[in-house]
């Protein structure tokens, strides 16, 4: 029934089918289906409150799914606890950076490497250094995490996600609060991560230039439902998307 590339049985892909998440009477995510493959960068956009973050929370097991299925590399992970989902290769970052403040930068990344797989401490340390170098903050390794400026905090968070050896990286507004040059660095970093590690990257952001430049495909949500899906060019021209964004900005104004 399903073709091998977009069915849940497909390898090297993250597949959500009819995902629903309700909070009391609110259907925050209302039957969203999406597929993204390793090596692909998928943008997830939509007006505020359209269910983007909730979807990520459900995919990573932070929130219990109400209905629907999630498959990773052909394995049904629906309803799994977060630590098991992490171990099949899903890693995420947060809109508001959440570092372990008691730890140094290196320890933050190390603990991720240690937790995600049963590897010895030395190997974890090596993996942590590699992740720090990849995002260009190896020189900050001994710093206490609590002392970092915001731009660097984000990079530590990405390094920490990388240290779990993810196959799919879910980034919730990685560009928020970054300066123009910092956004440029972020774009370059994400491109190298995709090229070198071959992970799939799902990225939520309000910065449309970042999304349009970086993403292979874009998935648009509004009121918890999918309203468009396709390449940046296709999505840009989609009337439903234009309406959702104009409507949202008109309300806000």
């Amino acid at each position, binding site marked *: 029934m399903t073709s091998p590339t977009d069915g849940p049985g497909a390898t090297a892909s993250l597949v959500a089918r009819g995902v629903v998440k309700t909070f009391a009477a609110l259907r925050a995510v209302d039957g969203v289906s999406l597929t993204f493959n390793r090596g692909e960068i998928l943008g997830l956009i939509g007006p505020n409150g359209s269910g983007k973050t909730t979807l990520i929370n459900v995919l990573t097991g932070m929130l219990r799914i109400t209905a629907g299925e999630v498959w990773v590399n052909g394995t049904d992970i629906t309803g799994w606890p977060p*630590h098991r989902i992490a171990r099949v290769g899903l890693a995420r970052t947060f809109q508001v950076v959440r570092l*372990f403040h008691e730890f140094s930068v290196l320890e933050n990344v190390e603990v991720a490497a240690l*937790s995600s797989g049963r590897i010895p401490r030395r190997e974890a340390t090596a993996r942590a250094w590699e992740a720090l170098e990849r995002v260009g903050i190896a020189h900050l390794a001994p710093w206490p995490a609590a002392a970092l400026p915001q731009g660097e905090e984000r990079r530590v968070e990405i390094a920490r996600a990388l240290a779990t050896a993810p196959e799919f990286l879910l980034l919730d507004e990685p560009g928020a609060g970054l300066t123009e040059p910092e956004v440029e660095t972020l774009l370059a970093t994400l491109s190298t991560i995709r090229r070198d590690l071959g992970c799939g990257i799902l990225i939520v952001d309000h910065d449309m230039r970042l999304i349009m430049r970086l993403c292979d495909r874009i998935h648009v949500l509004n009121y918890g439902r999918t309203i468009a899906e396709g390449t940046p060019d296709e999505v840009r021209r989609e009337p439903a998307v234009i309406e959702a964004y104009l409507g949202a900005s008109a309300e806000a104004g």
Partner: protein
Amino acid sequence: MVNDIVQFVVSSLSLGGLYALMALGLVIVYGILRLINFAYGELVMVGGYSLLILGKTVWPWIFVAALSVAMAVLASVLMERVGFRPVRNASPTTMLITSFAISALLQNIALLTVSPRPQAVRLPGFFVQTLTIGGFRVKAVDLISLAVSLILLGVLTVFLRRTIMGMALRASADDFTMARLLGVRANGVIALAFAISGFMAGIVSLFWIGRSSLVEPAVGLQPVLIAFIASVVGGMESLKGAVLGGYLLGFLTVGLQSVLPQSLLDYRQAVTFSIVIVLLLIRPQGLIGGTYAREAR
């Protein structure tokens, strides 16, 4: 005079070390579950009754003591598994009340199956000896408990800093959800925290009961109270705070005992608590502000 000072310092450090271990056992669980486990005192009780019952055998005392500590660890892990895990996702109040229920249950089991009266525990001879070192007379038990608490604090520090499980525990205490998202197993890390808590209670039971040589169903009441006060003073979420609070309370207790006139000795605890209240008025977050202080930033 010098002799008095040496004695004062040794007993303060000894009592403070004991208090610090008590507080650590409470804080290590609180840091992860945000649960003040008031049934912690009953783990001391389990250790005490194990000491009593196993002490009636002909086994060497040190072996009995090790088994008693193991019993406290076992009781702690079981307590989490049977009592707290089913209510883990309930409100903090539910967990708190559960801890009172477990506390009452365990005390009553001891009351019904052993005896409501205090029972004398077999203690080794060195517990009651007084040593003369370099002309200073000190109690052997004070020196031992001082040494044991320092060693345990060292071991715990190394464990938390250097080992995989220790790192996972610290990360979970900082941000449990984030730790789980990185692959830390919630059940595993909580069981570990309770095991450490039980271990502390077991060690505490040896020295706490060693002081009076008596064990009774309510024997854990004072340790849990002291642990609670020490950790509140030190900072509920900080392990350093728990240790600091423990030693502070130790010095305060011993200090008041030697400073207060005989007629006021009965009010020692009242004075101690008044000082604690004043301390908390000045620093409500405790001496070492933990996560709360940072989040308020």
